[in-house]
């Protein structure tokens, strides 16, 4: 009851701010928080990256192993994405098997990589039908202040972009960079009291009515979408969100490229 009361007071406050075109942390509706990306921070991982978006902090690690391909794609490597909302990141996260929030997060990040063919899985075949590389992307949420979708997806992309295939460990020649294509960039918005704001902080997520994540590529095309929460969007709102995602995507892509230190679209 208490927490219901508190969240109702907070809701009123944020709603009132929204009517004045203001946000609780002083940002404009279309203003993204500061993004920082550090790569190669876990020595034991094939690739790793820590992404901070404001106070939100996500660590992604890539491990690779040799295993069997799926029977319906015998000449392709295998991608597996997991996300853990560990209790470290929030007083509300609990230890235990991933709950539906973590599962949705992992699946959205996974689709962002898989459907856009960020990893060239066909190049990860070792022996058709027998041996392929398995790529494990593990998302570790360290500090949760909203917008895990964008932070996790960005961390995964940065970790993959700097990952080395551990060929030596498996006695298959020298390590070489994981073959990566130009990734789409995710951008998330939430809606409350008719306002639509980009990159929600935790307070905004708590009172949000609806959420929309759009992943766009270099050419401004749409590669994935995910609507969440029990509110609705009008078609016009969806179109505006798409436009804003393309704009933000271009800016975030530069930050990613700077961090991983190379232009993937062209090199690979």
């Amino acid at each position, binding site marked *: 009851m208490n927490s219901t009361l508190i969240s109702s007071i907070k809701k009123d406050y944020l709603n009132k701010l929204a009517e004045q075109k203001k946000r609780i942390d002083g940002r404009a509706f279309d203003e993204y928080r500061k993004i920082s990306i550090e790569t190669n921070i876990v020595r034991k991982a094939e690739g790793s990256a820590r992404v901070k978006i404001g106070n939100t902090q996500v660590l992604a690690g890539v491990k690779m192993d040799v295993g069997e391909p799926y029977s319906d794609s015998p000449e392709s490597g295998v991608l597996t994405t997991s996300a853990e909302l560990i209790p470290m990141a929030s007083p509300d996260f609990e230890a235990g098997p991933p709950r539906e929030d973590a599962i949705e997060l992992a699946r959205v990040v996974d*689709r962002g990589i898989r*459907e856009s063919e960020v990893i060239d899985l066909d190049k990860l075949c070792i022996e058709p039908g027998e041996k392929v590389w398995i790529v494990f992307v593990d998302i570790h949420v360290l500090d949760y202040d909203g917008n895990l979708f964008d932070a996790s997806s960005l961390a995964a992309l940065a970790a993959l972009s700097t990952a080395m295939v551990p060929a030596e460990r498996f006695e298959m020649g020298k390590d070489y960079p994981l073959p990566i294509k130009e990734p789409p960039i995710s951008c998330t918005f939430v809606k409350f009291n008719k306002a639509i704001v980009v990159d929600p902080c935790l307070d905004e997520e708590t009172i949000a009515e609806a959420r929309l994540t759009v992943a766009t590529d270099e050419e401004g095309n749409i590669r994935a979408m995910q609507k969440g929460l029990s509110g609705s969007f009008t078609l016009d709102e969806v179109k505006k969100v798409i436009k804003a995602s393309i704009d933000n995507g271009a800016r975030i892509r530069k930050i990613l490229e700077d961090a991983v230190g190379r232009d993937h679209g062209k090199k690979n």
Partner: protein
Amino acid sequence: MKSDIKLIDKEGKRLDGRKRDELRPIKIEVGPLYRADGSCYIEWGGNKILAAVYGPREALPRHIQHPLRAVVNARYNMASFSVEDRKRPGPDRRSTEISKVISEALEYVILTEQFPRAMIDINIEVLDAEAGTRCAGLTAAAVALADAGIPMRDIPVACAAGKIDGQVVLDLGKEEDNFGEADLPVAIAPRTDEIILLQMDGHLTVKEFDEAIELAIKGAHVVSELQKKALLAKYAVAKEVKQ
């Protein structure tokens, strides 16, 4: 995503003979189950899906209760024999995600504030699966909710559009889903066209997206009429019996 299969022939016909903006055959039956408070059976192309609603009833265990409204739990489940290779019984990550987005979409239309501390359970069982089970499942769940007499601001409905062979088409079939370039499932509240479920995988230009979502919404309105017809049929029979 890539393949040599031609999904649209020279005359613009799709593999199963449909036109670009044509739905697969849909059959809706209201109330096939005895125990459930409301139920619906849908056949949509090769999909065969049952939906059952229980509630509103006291939410248990208590810690899941919300003091101001009912909680809505949709549970999407595939029978182990509903797919080519037997599925292990029980929820997997895919069904957990679909359950979540369907729960959220249905919660929008249900007048949950009328039932504080209650829960409304919606069970969606996929008995035979072809492409598009989440849209068909949500559509059946909406009818089951109406059959259970759950007060709603609208009867929601879902339909997908997609891209195959470079063209935007309505309601992807199995091969179209496997080998097509994009899939865009959409659910709306049909009175206002508010979008309550939206997912997209694949590759669409902004222009193609605009085209696809309009096609999906148009398709959803056609399905919405089938929902209403099925409900009216049962209502008419019930009325007749009464008189």
